[in-house]
């Protein structure tokens, strides 16, 4: 039985034209877009659409996904000119006669919609994205009052999807630039009252490939599917770096 034998027959269902970026470095085919007509079923998401194509049209289509509920960050894609999470984006909300789906721009394509995220993760690891403490650990847990926790509210929402990293013009020109996501995480620990790693983290962001390469273009803010203000975090780190130069914390 071929995969098309199980294709649902949805007579009268509204359809949409879908153009999907295809590229397989293992073949001689050049990068191109494949088009299909896909029925819109209920509150179908872009991820549902990709599964529909995988199951009924082309079993070789490559894309990433995991949680299907907008918390893992695996399925970030470039849909109709915007950075979106495939699992969170409903087709009806796109309000477009055609849907164009591409991988995250400016990152090396491994296959179809799957990009190489290694540089992103390498920079993320560099910033020591964990709580650094020097004092003896408390008997039970590290306490933090609600007001202090509130300061991190925006930053802890980051799901590391890489949309901001892919959309940052400085990342495009400077391969050593840490990128918005890593800097947001850096700021998240900088404002964390329990963390004691400010001194060693400062040298990671106070240099010419750190916060100073950010020119407040705000592409990261526009790209973020979680509405995080990365530029605010980066500006906060800049002020922190200047304060440290003059003997501040």
């Amino acid at each position, binding site marked *: 039985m071929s995969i098309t034998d199980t294709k649902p027959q949805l007579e009268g269902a509204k359809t949409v034209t879908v153009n999907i970026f295809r590229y397989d470095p293992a073949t001689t085919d050049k990068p191109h877009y494949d088009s299909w007509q896909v029925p819109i079923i209920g509150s179908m998401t872009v991820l549902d659409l990709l599964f529909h194509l995988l199951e009924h049209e082309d079993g070789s289509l490559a894309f990433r996904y995991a949680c299907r509920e907008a918390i893992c960050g695996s399925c970030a894609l470039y849909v109709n000119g915007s950075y979106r999470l495939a699992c969170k984006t409903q087709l009806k909300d796109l309000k477009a006669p055609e849907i164009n789906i591409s991988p995250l721009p400016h990152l090396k394509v491994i296959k179809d919609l799957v990009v190489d995220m*290694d*540089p992103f993760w*390498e*920079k993320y690891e*560099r910033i020591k994205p964990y709580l650094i403490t020097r004092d003896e650990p408390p008997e039970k847990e590290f306490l933090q009052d609600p007001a202090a926790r509130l300061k991190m509210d925006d930053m802890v929402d980051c799901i590391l999807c890489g949309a901001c990293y892919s959309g940052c013009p*400085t990342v495009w*020109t*400077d*391969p*050593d*630039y*840490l990128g918005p996501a890593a800097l947001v995480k850096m700021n998240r620990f900088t404002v964390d009252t329990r963390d004691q790693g400010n001194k060693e983290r400062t*040298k*990671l962001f*106070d*240099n*010419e*490939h*750190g916060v*100073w*390469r950010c*020119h407040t273009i705000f592409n990261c803010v526009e790209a973020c599917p979680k509405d995080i203000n990365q530029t605010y975090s980066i500006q906060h780190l*800049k002020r922190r*770096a*200047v304060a*440290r*130069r003059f003997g501040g914390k």
Partner: protein
Amino acid sequence: MSVRDQGQPAWLVGPGGAIAWLLQRLSGFILVLLLGTHLLLLHYGGDQQLVFASVTIRLKTVLFIIIDTGLLASGLYHGLNGLRNVVLDWDISRRAAAVLTTVLWIVGIFMTIYGATALYSFWAGRGVFGG
């Protein structure tokens, strides 16, 4: 060179840009302030006629000398550091960045002295460049 290609990540080494960033903000603020004052004084203050004699008188005034020297220094710093930032966006090597910074400082200092010489000529009562 990408992060993975190099043994020592470039962004872990060497001085940062905190002071340059602070000075860029300060010079920008001073520029806005002095440019506004400069325009106001030129268009609404005193002699409206722009002739050699009126410029000579203006350049013998302490206020103008202070404003123009401030404009010269802050404009040069702001512009040259802006140029440095544009070039650094090309991900040049650390050595090239250091050379660029040194050259721009030399250019900036030379231009400031050169500009100040012109500004202070009338103040010193010697005419332009001592002539």
